[in-house]
Structures are given as structure tokens and as C-alpha cells.
């Protein structure tokens, strides 16, 4: 695969990090993210429990502690994204899927939970999907995290391993409401970042702001 730099790709799709501190500035993008989640999780997967108004999908973890990584272009079109939530607070794995964890629950400052990974249907194998995969590592390192817990379909493990992610199972796979699920920990490390970066052929930072200016900001 050939490496394309951001300027060669033509469109400047970047990943925005949206949290309670800057949500006002990114209100529109955040709203589009909730709409995309409705499309994917209510429309396609039929999870009706968190259908707010027939247009947005939200649950009790969409609060001030949540951080959203959203892949969007200059025109504000959202290709995909995911949500991060501190594991030191009650979170989805601790409150809803604790039975998937065999052993002690991970509740640490340097581990966040990754949920609601949603890609627009046309973007599932796109560059934006690759950027978001890389963002897991890049954001983790930027924030000094050691990993992200997540509940995923076990069939995704070989796919994500193929992209270079290091995945630790936290329990055996189990069926929940007819869906195969497993709790996992995605490790964050320079080594993983390098592997994912190589496999998706993206060398640049996937974030809109350079890491240095983000730290100062």
C-alpha cells in the first residue's frame, strides 16, 4: 500500500477530539456523531433502547466525562468515530457487561473504555477507518494511557490484530442477546503505534492539531 500524505489525499479529513471543555465549539460535529450512531446502532443493528428521538442515539454515558474522537472533513461531514469514557467512573463494562470479565475489573486512571465505534456504511474500509484505528494508539500515547477496554465481537479480533493492534482478552467469548461478544483490553504502546501506522500506511499525525500545540492549548 502506498503512503499518502494529508495534502496528497486531497481532502483534509482529520480527527477531532471533542470533550466537555470544547463541546460548545464542536456542537454541530457532535450532533452529527449522534446521528451517525443512530444510523448505525438503531438503524442497522436494531438497538432501540437508546433511540432518543428517532434521529439521535445516546445513552447514560454520553455525559461530561465522555470524550469523542470524530473523523470529519472541512465541510463537517462525519465519516465515523468512537467514544472514550474513564474506567474509574461507573462505565458500560462495569455496569452492564461485568459478566464478560473473568477476574478483576479494570478501573484505572490510565485506562479508558472505548465504545460506540461507528463508521458510515460507505466508509468501512476507507482511509477514515484507518485513521480512527491509528487514533486509538496516538490518542492513548498523547494522554499517557496504557490501554482501552472494550466489548467487541470476537470475530473482530483477527481483523484488528491484522492491523497491528495488541489485544488482551478479559474473559471468554459469550452470547448476549444473540450477539457474540467478548471484553478485551487494547494495549497502547509506541510499538503498537508503529505497527498500526505501518499497516494502514499513514505516517502523519491523524489529529487536526499537532501534538505539541495540543499540549500547550
Amino acid at each position, binding site marked *: 500500500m502506498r503512503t499518502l500524505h494529508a495534502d496528497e489525499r486531497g481532502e483534509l479529513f482529520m480527527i477531532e477530539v471533542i470533550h466537555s471543555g470544547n463541546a460548545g465549539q464542536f456542537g454541530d460535529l457532535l450532533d452529527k456523531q449522534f446521528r451517525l450512531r443512530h444510523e448505525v446502532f438503531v438503524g442497522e443493528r436494531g438497538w432501540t433502547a437508546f433511540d432518543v428521538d428517532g434521529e439521535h442515539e445516546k445513552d447514560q454515558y454520553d455525559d461530561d466525562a465522555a470524550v469523542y474522537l470524530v473523523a470529519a472533513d472541512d465541510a463537517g461531514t462525519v465519516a465515523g468515530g468512537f467514544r472514550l469514557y474513564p474506567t474509574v467512573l461507573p462505565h458500560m463494562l462495569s455496569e452492564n457487561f461485568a459478566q464478560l470479565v*473473568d*477476574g*478483576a475489573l479494570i478501573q484505572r486512571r490510565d485506562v479508558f473504555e472505548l465504545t460506540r465505534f461507528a463508521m458510515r456504511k460507505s466508509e468501512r474500509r476507507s482511509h477514515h477507518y484507518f485513521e480512527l484505528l491509528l487514533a486509538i494508539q496516538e490518542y492513548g500515547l498523547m494522554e499517557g494511557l496504557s490501554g482501552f477496554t472494550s466489548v467487541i465481537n*470476537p*470475530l473482530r*479480533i*483477527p*481483523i484488528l490484530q*491484522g492491523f497491528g493492534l495488541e489485544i488482551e482478552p478479559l474473559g*471468554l467469548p459469550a452470547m448476549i442477546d444473540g450477539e457474540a461478544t467478548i471484553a478485551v483490553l487494547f494495549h497502547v504502546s509506541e510499538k503498537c503505534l508503529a505497527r498500526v501506522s505501518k499497516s494502514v500506511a499513514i505516517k502523519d499525525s491523524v489529529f487536526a492539531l499537532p501534538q505539541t500545540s495540543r499540549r500547550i492549548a
Partner: protein
Amino acid sequence: MGSFKGKHFQTALSAIESIANAASMSAVGDVVAATAKSFGYNHICFLASTGVNQPFEDRVLLKVWPKPWAEQYSASNFYASDPVAPRIRRQPELFTWSDIRLDEVSPISRTIMEIASVDYGLKFGLCAPVHGMNGYQAGLSLAGYEVENTEDAHGAIELVTMYAFNRFATLRSHQRAKLIALTLREREVVSWVAAGKTAWDTSVILGISEDTVNKTVTAAMHKLNAHTRAQAVAEAITQGLIAF
């Protein structure tokens, strides 16, 4: 939840750890075989996808089969009609032989299943496919007489299969990288061969002895698995090791 880990999860975790530390394909295979055996399977076959038309033997990552079954399988060319093989390619989810509907497979496939069950006493079989980002990658096919047929056992086998394949793939890519890693000098020399220079020309250009040039070309040929200088040049170009 307490910190007590269930037996099967513990089995899976220690297998995954051994797999991560395995330095060779056969060491990975040993872990898979030991895990399968701990659940009562004594017929173990781990096949990789390397092109659909590849013969059975070329795709085997691991095979632990009692001799009579191995001989029967090979002599009767069971692979061609083994009902498990096409399903492993099609379906990413783990399945058991009992999931295979007899009315949906060919008469030859039914006969094979009957022979396995009646002649060899293989009452239970399980398949754990591995499907990656480009679809079907590999599949573990297990069979036995007295096996542990529980959801947890299946989950543990599913996990170990995925991690084993991932390790196989990593080791294989390391092996390839090692094989084609030409030194700077080797690439230089092969480039001059490609440009039509003789060993003597090259020795003058690079300021080294003709003997060194010849030895370097031989080393490059060996790494590229080439029998002639022309083959080495063609292979080096194909692999992008030299510009052309």
C-alpha cells in the same frame, strides 16, 4: 466479579501467553495441539489459506492425526469432498460437525462423515475458522471421541486459534523479511549485474576485488532463491529491492 479466573479462561490465557513467546511455527503448533488435547481432541489439523487451488499438504500449519485416519484421508482424497473445508472458508463463526446438515452436503461428503463416525469412531468434530480483514485466513479442525462440548471450551478454542494464527502470520512475515533482506552491498552489486556489467566492471566501479563481487552475487542469489544471475536480478526487481 472477583479475581477468580474460570478454568477454561485460565487455559486460554496461558496458551495465548505461550503462543506470544513461541519463537517458531512448530512451537505455536505445539501449544495449539496441547490445548486441543486438553479438551479431548486427538485429531488436530490447522490449515492456512494460501490460494484455493493449493494442495492440502502445502497449507498445513499443524497436523496431528492418528496414522489410520491420515492414510485413509490421503488415499481416498477426502479433502476434495470434506464438508468441513468449504464451510470453514464461508463461515467466520465456530461450528461443530452437528451443525452440518446432512441434506445440504453431497453424497460423497455424507459418506466421508459416515466413515469418520463409524469406521474411526470420530463422534464429535469442531472447526474454528479465522477470518481476517481479507476474509478467510485459516481454520482449525478438531475431532475426537470423548470431548468437552461446552460453550466455554469452544470459546477457549476459538481464542487460542485466533492468537495462534496471528503468531503464525507474524513469524511467517519475519521469516520472509529475513530471507529477502539484502545488504546494501548486495543490492549495489545486483544493480550492476542488472545494468549488464561484468564482475570485473563492477569490481572497478565499486573499488572492491572481483572475488568479493562474485561472492556477494552468490550470497544475493542464495537469499533470493535464484539459480542464475538473471533470476536473481528478476527476483530483486520483483521484490522492489533494486530499482530498474
